[in-house]
């Protein structure tokens, strides 16, 4: 036919057109074509994030794997489910030092807050820019019905919390005052956020409630809720979760789960408090 053979014409395409195509590729394919050239790699990293299945949370292993592949892709280093520190109303929280997003200091720990649905990723420098992974545990406070902004609540020992607000973009530190027996006991590494407060379990048999917004009276910042002794078993794993705006305490021992009889009791407490 003797028609012109377009040479490298796709390199001359406007970015939006390249993005059109990249956008239609799955995560695996995007990773693959990131090896094509520098410009492709940069373009995919900066503009195109993989498509997610519309339904969320993922309901199959493959989706879960894709999800973490996606998280790894946007953070810039590999993250596994065990690196997921917290999830809160659709947001994910990771902490790592090998991320490669723009304007990140390499080798310094950052928190990464990801929204897999809107495909956003925000990197937040750990307070004082630590190079160690110590005291990385943090919780997310986010409820889109309350606010579009999220907060990261990082536990600095048992006496202080650092709070990052995505609204102000800065970290603030609050002092929390718990009785000594709470400070000395072990706290379960899992938090839930409900209506302005973070809840965390203490193995002393208490539920700790920490208000996320600074209170005028320091003693009001944090509060101890005693769990009903009938529902506490020795040698059991304690977990806390949320269901229908109620806090659910799950105790599990060996392989069988003794679901919480105390649920209603904790709930009653909550209802009074809120």
């Amino acid at each position: 036919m003797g028609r012109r053979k377009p040479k490298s014409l796709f390199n001359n395409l406007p970015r939006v057109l390249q993005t059109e195509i990249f956008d239609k590729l799955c995560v695996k394919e995007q990773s693959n074509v990131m090896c094509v050239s520098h410009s492709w790699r940069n373009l995919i990293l900066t503009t195109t994030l993989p498509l997610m299945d519309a339904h969320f949370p993922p309901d199959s292993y493959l989706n879960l794997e894709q999800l973490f592949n996606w998280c790894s892709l946007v953070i810039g280093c590999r993250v596994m489910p065990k690196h997921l520190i917290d999830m809160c109303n659709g947001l994910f929280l990771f902490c790592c030092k090998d991320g490669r997003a723009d304007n990140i200091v390499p080798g310094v720990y950052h928190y990464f807050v990801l929204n897999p649905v809107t495909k956003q990723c925000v990197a937040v420098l750990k307070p004082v820019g630590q190079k160690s992974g110590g005291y990385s545990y943090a919780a997310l406070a986010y409820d889109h019905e309350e606010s579009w902004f999220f907060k990261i609540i990082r536990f600095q020992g048992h006496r202080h919390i650092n709070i990052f607000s995505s609204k102000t973009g800065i970290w603030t530190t609050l002092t929390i005052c718990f009785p000594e027996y709470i400070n000395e006991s072990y706290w379960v590494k899992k938090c839930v956020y409900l209506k302005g407060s973070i809840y965390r379990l203490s193995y002393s048999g208490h539920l700790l409630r920490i208000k996320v917004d600074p209170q005028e009276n320091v003693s009001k910042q944090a509060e101890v809720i005693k769990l009903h002794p009938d529902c506490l078993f020795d040698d059991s794993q304690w977990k806390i979760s949320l269901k229908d705006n109620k806090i659910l305490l799950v105790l599990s021992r060996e392989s069988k789960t003794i679901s919480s009889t105390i649920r209603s009791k904790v709930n009653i407490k909550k209802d009074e408090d809120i």
Partner: protein
Amino acid sequence: MAEEVSSQMNSLSISETNPSSSATISLVSGDDIVFKVEPTIAKEMETVQSFIDETDGKITTIPLPNISSHDLPYVIEYCEKSIAGKITKEFEAEFVKKLNNEEVKELFLAANYLNIKKLLDFLSQVIADRIANKSVEYVRRYFGIENDFTPEEEAKLREELAWTFTGVDPDDEDEN
């Protein structure tokens, strides 16, 4: 009765004073072949339509130097189906079957030039499908892109990305 007649007369007079609503549009390809199309087809092509609008419909011959007479019929065919509301999966599958890789690329550019959103969207999916599950080398050839990574860089990159393949494509490698 009288009202009806007068309204008919009105519509007649409107069509007379507005030639663009009935006259065909001539699209001239880059190699000077003229394609006569209905104005409704031109409407699908935003670039053509804005040209017509700018000249108040006085100009009905539109040169499209970037599009060859080989590609233009495909574009017109797609637009015709689009107006008829007959863009089905079957039609798209048949449409794609006729096209080789080079034609897909050229049509993609044509769709962009003519600003036909639906066709562009469709073809970007076609291109994505055609490079899916292909090697990096194949993708480079397909897009005519030169590898600007050093061998070390590329090896490192591939190693770093190796995990993205695990468990996703069972045909590739048996990973345990």
